[in-house]
């Protein structure tokens, strides 16, 4: 039998797995599944912090933050993402670092801190470009495109969205490319008007 005291590392891993399972569960009530996932992530994160497992702590923070976003707890999410980023800054995992920055950008975007969102999207984009993470590049460009539409810079928005669409096509992500195409059409439509 595993207990938190005897096997804290396993405790963290098990709660993390349970959280992932609840998060990805298709059956049942979605909100309840999310609540269960949040509960298990919280259990895992507390223990990870206690045993000083920074890697697990930062990864779980990122996942828990994403769920908080779904629940509308934006400031709690932002706090977790920033904690996660602070840990990743100490290491050299640029992928994880870029992911944390992207999540911060997305959260600022949701809150309405457009200025901060723009700077963080660009920060994440620079890192994704450096490590040639195509999916990350496309995500950041899509975020920037949406942001620029909101700010009224339609030419910039169209430019970013075109690049995002091309990247998704290169990756074979047609569904994503179609979503971006919809946004592009909207931006062009607004521009014409």
């Amino acid at each position: 039998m595993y207990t938190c005291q005897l096997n804290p590392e396993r405790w963290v891993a098990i709660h993390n797995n349970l959280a992932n399972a609840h998060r990805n569960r298709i059956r049942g009530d979605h909100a309840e599944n999310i609540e269960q996932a949040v509960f298990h992530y919280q259990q895992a994160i507390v223990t990870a912090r206690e045993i000083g497992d920074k890697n697990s702590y930062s990864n779980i923070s990122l996942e828990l933050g994403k769920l908080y976003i779904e629940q509308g707890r934006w400031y709690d999410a932002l706090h977790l993402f920033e904690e996660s980023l602070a840990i990743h800054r100490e290491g050299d995992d640029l992928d994880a670092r870029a992911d944390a920055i992207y999540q911060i950008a997305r959260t600022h975007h949701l809150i309405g801190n457009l200025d901060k969102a723009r700077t963080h999207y660009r920060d994440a984009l620079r890192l994704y470009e450096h490590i040639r993470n195509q999916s990350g590049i496309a995500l950041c460009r899509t975020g920037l495109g949406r942001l620029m539409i909101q700010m009224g810079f339609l030419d910039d928005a169209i430019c970013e969205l075109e690049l995002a669409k091309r990247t998704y096509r290169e990756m074979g992500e047609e569904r994503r490319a179609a979503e971006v195409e919809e946004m592009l059409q909207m931006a062009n439509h607004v521009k014409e008007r």
Partner: protein
Amino acid sequence: MSAVLSQIFRFLRLVLSARLHYIERVDRPLIWRKKLPNKAMSEADRIFDELTNTLSRWGLEEIPFTESASCLGLSKLREVFTGRTQELREVLTLFQGRERKRILVYGWAGIGKTAFILEVLSVLQRKAKDTLATYISLPPKTDLATAALIALARGMEDDEWAQHQLNLMGLRPKKRPVQRTGKGKADILSIGIEAEETTVPVTPPRFPALSFEDLLERALKKYSRVVIAIDDLDKQDPARVRELLRNDQGLLKSGAWFMLTGHPSGLTRDILTSELGLFDLAIELKQLDQDTTYRMLVNYLNSARPKKATRDFDDPAAVQPFTPETACVLCERSDGVPRWLNRLGNYVLLKAASIHADLVTDDVLQQGLEYAAHQLRGQSGLTAEDYYVLDLVLEKRILSDETVTLTDLERLKAKEFSEILPILEKLVQYDLLRRLPSERAAEYEPTPLLIGKTEQKEDKAD
């Protein structure tokens, strides 16, 4: 007998003379110092007198420039406040109405937001009936409700409860409230009461918004209008300010008028686009034009002249010790930013005084500008990290979150623009950088205060 009397008189005369000498030296040291011959003057005395004489030759009693409007008294502020006619008209028109408003004043660092707010409050205090106008610079780590509570309590000097609130927060009230405890004292002949005074322990308000509401209610019984100006929000992290505004929306919609200062771009735009309704009026303070800057310079210089020696704007001697030409260059270099005019004016006059210049000629001005650039770069509080960032901006001319490269950032031991943002903002507060009013990117460039004459000429030639 006469010999004895003579001895006594002689003794008394000696004592009296010694006493007079003592009075001259110790009780009235200033008079004593003035009587000293020049030879006995110390080096410091001589330097002090020289500087006073230089200022006196310029027709000034002191160097009038200050870096912040809050350092000036209200009467001095009235003397030096220049321009902003349109903006004042817009704000003061609102104050003719009965309905309370929330006003946001925003613009670059040093553009004169504080001076503008203080000028409005000063007019209200003097001219608006039954108006309580209060001001506070938002302290770090303080929410808006607490700041508003402090400002209001400070404004209600005669209200015991308001002063009690200040005391509870560990702030010095105008009238120190005390807890009085009665003590019975029985005596055979009389029965007396002894009062014992104890200081109230510091306990910050648990519900500052509610405490503010209570205090506002008390204030509105006495005044028909309460105006609370909360300054320096733009000196805090934009995301935090947004959170503060979001949390204290109820407070801002209470029965008081509010005047707040905002960031020059970014946050202000974000708030105004996504939360319309939070402010009734948003006023952007832009750079002053050259003529207004020149008038401001004259006003500053006049504020340091003896009352009878003040000059009109048209008088070329109004800018003395500057010549009209060097005054124009100074105004041009200040770029219409009042704080830059103050900083540059201050450094140029300090330099001119140190070289005993009778006039600020072209040559003296250049020396002054170089001195200013040197002094600005050497301000205390700047770290090696700050200098690295400053050098990068100086090298690139404009540093933005859009064009900065990973190589640039790695030179600063960073990988994200967000990591150096706090440093860039610090350099803005130190007047070394300015943030360009672009909405598409966070762009920073060196202020004209840092650029030498030759470089600026090259710029113009380009």
